[in-house]
């Protein structure tokens, strides 16, 4: 077994403040790859545990490509059960933590238990120490990360929102990189863990077993990046970050507006990429080893497309400064911007309000308040709308607020929101790639034909990407073909794309199976009623009708057959028996 493909884990019990370093069995390493696969392996050991139970695991896992020369592969995955959705949840996150873990000789950090008071875990190479967290309750995360700087470490931390019980609290890595969705920050806070910092003294560069093949794979991937208008084009994400999507989504009439009551916002240009460039002159910023550099900074953090669109169109706000301030408030407190924006938009609809720029910022700030409304807001839109007696106003699937692609404008996206194992998420299958961005080829965005299998395959691919530590944007230019070659060069194992896709299929099926054991069935794979009843904002040449419920259900039936599920969405006995060895208990 090549050394590069044997995972070393640090297992930490916060209750007893003890840690042990242990190699993970080679079969598990091979079956899980790393990252998300490894996270699911540990979640699968206690499939019914409550997300906030002290024994519930919180897993940080790198991928086998971390620290290699394969481009855009320095990401890692944070996994736990979600206190927002109660599903499995894992988030891909950039920043330097994955690389520091590799330098420290660590692939996995597994945390369970609950400390008796707020603490920080410091890992220097293999040595684990526990330190008290700063006493200030409302310390902004940027200030907290400043304090960590002298350590020379990379860190993941939660903010004040998590300790106030916000169910969509995020975990921030190195101040700028969010593990946003699903409220994993609340899981971390429930363990009384403020931060996890890692410093390694090993080499920052992992040597591939076949360096020539690694270089060939690297070159092939870079050539494809250069050929991609989405990545390296003059309006690509390398030039504008994901704000490049604002104009496009508006022109496709699928920008969720006014809590999804419309799909076009007249004021969208106020937060489009060219306007941001003109007003803020941002510079590109990147995760370590990534030539794409899709983040944008200009003294302040420029929000991602989802955040721009949701603090903008979803809340009918065309005040860019208010969007940027709302984003800053969320980052300082450790709050998922998509869920925050969607939750306040939901409240605005229930209360029949419309925000100005300032009142939007005030409402975001109020999430951290001590009053009843703040408690409601911190629940997330689904719980809040239920509490207020209008559950249909929550635009979420399985409790996870939908991001900024209206499903009435892309039917593959609609199906993928439904089948996503962590709730309404665009990234699990990212059908925007073919339905809008035409990669690898264009598909008809207003048709469910063929989408069941396309979504299933894309979900499996997404698992692989998240498990090897790569970035999903890279796959809008390159493909698994090139990354499989890179992985083979790095590990010495002869991976073909299909070997990896089988692993992806296995892990995704396992995620679905764990969710089933937590009570999730077909009814949880349905979209909010609004999408079956209300049309979007049509314009001559682009008709945005409601989604035909019958067609959606037929597509769901086909998806279940392709995925190996029963008609109720649970995994069939036959498929369950076939799950990978790492999950056999």
């Amino acid at each position, binding site marked *: 077994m090549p050394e590069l493909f044997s995972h070393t884990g640090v297992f930490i019990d916060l209750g007893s403040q003890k840690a042990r370093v242990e190699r993970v069995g080679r079969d598990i390493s091979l079956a899980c790859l790393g990252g998300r696969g490894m996270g699911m392996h540990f979640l699968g050991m206690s499939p019914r545990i409550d997300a906030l139970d002290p024994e519930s695991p919180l897993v940080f896992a790198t991928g086998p490509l971390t620290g290699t020369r394969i481009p855009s592969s320095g990401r890692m995955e944070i996994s736990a059960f979600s206190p927002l959705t109660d599903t499995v949840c894992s988030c891909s996150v950039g920043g330097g933590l994955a690389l520091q873990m590799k330098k420290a000789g660590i692939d996995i950090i597994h945390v369970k238990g609950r400390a008796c008071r707020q603490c920080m875990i410091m890992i220097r190479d293999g040595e684990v120490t526990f330190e008290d967290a700063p006493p200030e309750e409302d310390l902004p995360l940027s200030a907290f990360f400043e304090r960590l700087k002298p350590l020379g470490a990379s860190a993941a931390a939660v903010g004040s929102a998590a300790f106030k019980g916000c169910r969509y609290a995020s975990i921030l890595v190195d101040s700028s990189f969010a593990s946003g969705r699903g409220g994993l920050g609340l899981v971390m806070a429930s363990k009384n863990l403020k931060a996890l910092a890692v410093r390694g003294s090993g080499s920052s560069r992992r040597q591939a077993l076949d360096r020539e093949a690694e270089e060939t794979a690297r070159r*092939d991937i*870079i*050539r*494809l*990046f*250069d*050929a*991609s*208008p*989405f990545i*390296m*084009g*003059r*309006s*690509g994400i390398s030039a*504008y970050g994901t*704000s*490049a*999507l*604002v*104009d*496009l989504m508006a*022109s496709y009439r699928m920008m969720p507006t006014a809590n999804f009551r419309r799909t076009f916002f007249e004021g969208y240009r106020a937060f*489009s*990429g*060219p306007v941001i460039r003109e007003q803020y002159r941002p510079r590109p910023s990147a995760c370590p080893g990534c030539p794409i550099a899709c983040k944008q900074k200009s003294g302040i953090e420029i929000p991602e497309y989802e955040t721009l669109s949701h603090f903008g169109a979803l809340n009918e706000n065309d005040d860019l400064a208010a969007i940027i301030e709302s984003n800053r408030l969320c980052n300082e407190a450790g709050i998922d911007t998509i869920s925050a924006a969607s939750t306040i938009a939901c409240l605005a609809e229930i209360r029949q309000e419309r925000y100005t720029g300032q009142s939007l910022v005030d409402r975001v700030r109020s999430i951290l308040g001590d009053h009843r409304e703040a408690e409601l807001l911190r629940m997330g839109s689904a719980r809040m709308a239920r509490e207020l007696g209008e559950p249909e106003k929550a635009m979420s699937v399985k409790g996870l607020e939908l991001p900024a692609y209206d499903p009435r404008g892309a039917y593959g996206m609609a199906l993928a929101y439904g089948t996503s194992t962590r709730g309404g998420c665009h990234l699990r299958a990212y059908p925007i790639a*073919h339905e*809008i*961005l*035409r*990669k*690898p*080829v*264009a*598909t008809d965005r207003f048709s469910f*034909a*063929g989408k*069941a*299998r*396309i979504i299933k*395959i*894309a979900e*499996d*691919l997404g698992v692989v990407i998240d498990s090897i530590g790569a970035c999903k944007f890279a796959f809008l230019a390159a493909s698994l*073909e*090139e990354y*499989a070659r890179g992985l083979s060069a790095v590990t010495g194992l002869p991976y*073909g*794309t*299909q*070997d990896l*896709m*089988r692993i*992806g*299929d296995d892990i995704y099926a396992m995620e679905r199976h764990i969710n089933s054991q937590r009570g999730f069935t077909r009814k949880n794979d349905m979209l909010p009623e609004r999408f079956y009843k209300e049309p979007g904002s049509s314009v001559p040449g682009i008709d945005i009708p409601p989604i035909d419920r019958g067609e959606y259900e037929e597509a769901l039936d*086909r998806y279940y*057959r*392709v995925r190996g599920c029963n008609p109720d969405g649970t995994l069939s006995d036959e498929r369950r028996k076939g799950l990978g060895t790492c999950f056999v208990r």
Partner: protein
Amino acid sequence: MLRQINKYLGKLTAHGLISNPGDAQFYGLDDEIYSNRDRIPEVVRALFDDLNINSLLIARPEPLRWAIIGELIRKRPETISPSDSESLTFIHDIPVIRSFDAREIAGALSRRKGCIVEGLGIVTAGSVALEQAFIVFSSICFATFVKYFADMLSALSGAEGSPEPSPEEIAACRGYLSRIAMNPMTPPLPGSLPTGETEIVSAMDAAGKTVVAAGLVDSFFGNISAREGDHIYISQTGSSLDELEGHIDRTAMDGSSTCEITSSSELCAHVRIYELTGNRIIIHGHPRFSVIMSMAGGRLAFGDTRHIGGVPVVAGEVGAGARGLVHTLPEAIKEHQAAIVSGHGTFVASDTSFHDAFVRLASIEEMCFHLCIKAVNP
């Protein structure tokens, strides 16, 4: 699904890639397998079981292309490495396997998007749409055709590392060239500049169909644009030039809207050409002999220029990277309203009409075809 299958079978035939639709087996899988064949062979079922794909194409190219592939695989290579830059970028290399065995094919398709099966044909797959299998099939046909003649010219010129071809090999090459016809009949294009969105889009659509019908571009490569005032109409990335309706972006010359993110990967080069010249129309095709002749004479260094019959040849990769053709092509195209990017394809421009641009593209290809014949018959 069946409608899509028939569409691509029609395109394979119309593009001259296969002799007739019966030479191809096309399979598409959603929750069941659809095909142009009544019976689904076991090997196909096994492949769908084994691979995470939703389309599979098994077809024998038309006789000339298949004979040329036969020449390439005669020495039993495990893979064929294309020599043109587009194929290198998108398909890298082509595995060659010896039998129609599910396990062997699955192995090859696990490494690459398509493979050649000796004695059978080309097998390609896709995981999103049937179009992918069609595109890869077409790309393999293009890559093998170009490689065969480029290698032959290289060998005949005595290039280092190229074994001298035998008299039989040279005779075979001459025979293949004698079977190729230039200038297929194509419908005439408007002889004036189109104006207004409707007219421009319609003219681009017609020009795209003509370029494909003339065999000057394969698969989903190539792009077309027209400038009107401060805007450019340009084919979208990954669009087929014979199906441009609904796949043309209108984008601002100054990049003031990012909607162009779905435009052709060569948008920057088109913009730069329009900025440098008074041209109003650009067509980019991948004419086979223009690509072949652009590689004759050895590797062209980035920044260098040579000429074929007065047409400049420059180096440059696809897109806007550091070594992208955006840095070399626009200057080169200024004088002759045409330039060939070595190992890639031809760009032609016009300030008068699509007809003018198309004629230039076709005549450069014809010139290159005759130069190729001359090189093989010194």
